[in-house]
């Protein structure tokens, strides 16, 4: 999983570019989409709560991985959407889901040793691990550097061309 700042900046850049064509994508909705980019990172709750603790309570197998799957982001985007007024639900959901899916796609681009990512399309494709182009590893500062450079270009274009 790429670091949270990289995810956030990617969502910020893509939504800013989207705002050049889609009228309703204004700054508040870009901000909501950037929040959506953090949804897959909710799987990190496993650092605080061991899944085995949950398993012992439930008596069932359990994993914290699902926030980083397509099914997980569809549901968690809906949960967060409930925090917005009824009139804003559609836009909130679209913005949150866009940010979250961008993060999932960003993680899919990472390098995996056997060339296949985790099954992030679950539960629509249950165990399918898509082939990955293996473009980067999270710990490479160059990744963040490139994303910061692209974000800066987008901001400059947004400021001076539109």
């Amino acid at each position: 999983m790429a670091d949270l700042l990289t995810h956030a900046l990617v969502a910020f850049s893509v939504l800013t570019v989207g705002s050049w064509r889609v009228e309703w994508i204004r700054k508040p909705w870009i901000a909501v989409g950037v929040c959506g980019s953090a949804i897959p990172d909710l799987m990190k709750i496993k650092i605080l709560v061991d899944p085995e603790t949950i398993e012992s309570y439930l008596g069932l197998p359990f994993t914290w991985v699902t926030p980083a799957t397509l099914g997980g982001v569809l549901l968690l985007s809906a949960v967060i959407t409930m925090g917005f007024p009824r009139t804003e639900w559609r836009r909130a959901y679209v913005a949150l889901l866009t940010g979250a899916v961008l993060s999932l796609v960003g993680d899919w681009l990472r390098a995996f040793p056997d060339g296949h990512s985790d099954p992030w399309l679950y539960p629509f494709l249950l165990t399918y691990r898509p082939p990955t182009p293996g473009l980067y590893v999270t710990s490479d500062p160059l990744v963040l550097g490139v994303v910061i450079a692209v974000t800066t270009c987008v901001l400059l274009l947004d400021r001076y061309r539109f």
Partner: protein
Amino acid sequence: MIDTDTPPPVHLWTRAVVILLCLVSLGGLSVHYDAIDAGKRPYPDTGTLDAEYEVHVGEDIVLYGTVINRQDDDLHIRSGDLTDIRVTGFTGEVQPGGVVAVDGTLQEDRTIAASNVVVVNPGPWAFTYKYAVSGVGVVFILGLFFRSWSVSFTDLTFRRRGDNDG
């Protein structure tokens, strides 16, 4: 005249029910995902390898491990129940304490002939880097959000700053 374009306000309990339904569904997925081993890769885990190593010699395996040391093109790594396993054919850069992901063929004498090694963390500093950068990400996300939105405690919703009627 009734404004049909504006949806009626939603009661707090309705939102609570939707949230509960979504979280219960997510819980169901979290149980199901683990029950069917959706994330399991088709390779033996370190516990299995440690217990019955010879059975798997010659198989293709994938291991994530922490680097203990390096001797020329050989790495010695620690991975779960395997306290020291040799990885041959490594040509990249990694420090002791770094993490590698190895795809290769299991050989005798606790050795993997690597066909691909991904350096997940080049050194122990990489953990600090990732968490520090993610911390900056949290500040960026919250700062950006609360520049445009505030919390209305009367109906427990986010409101766009500058809007009086939502």
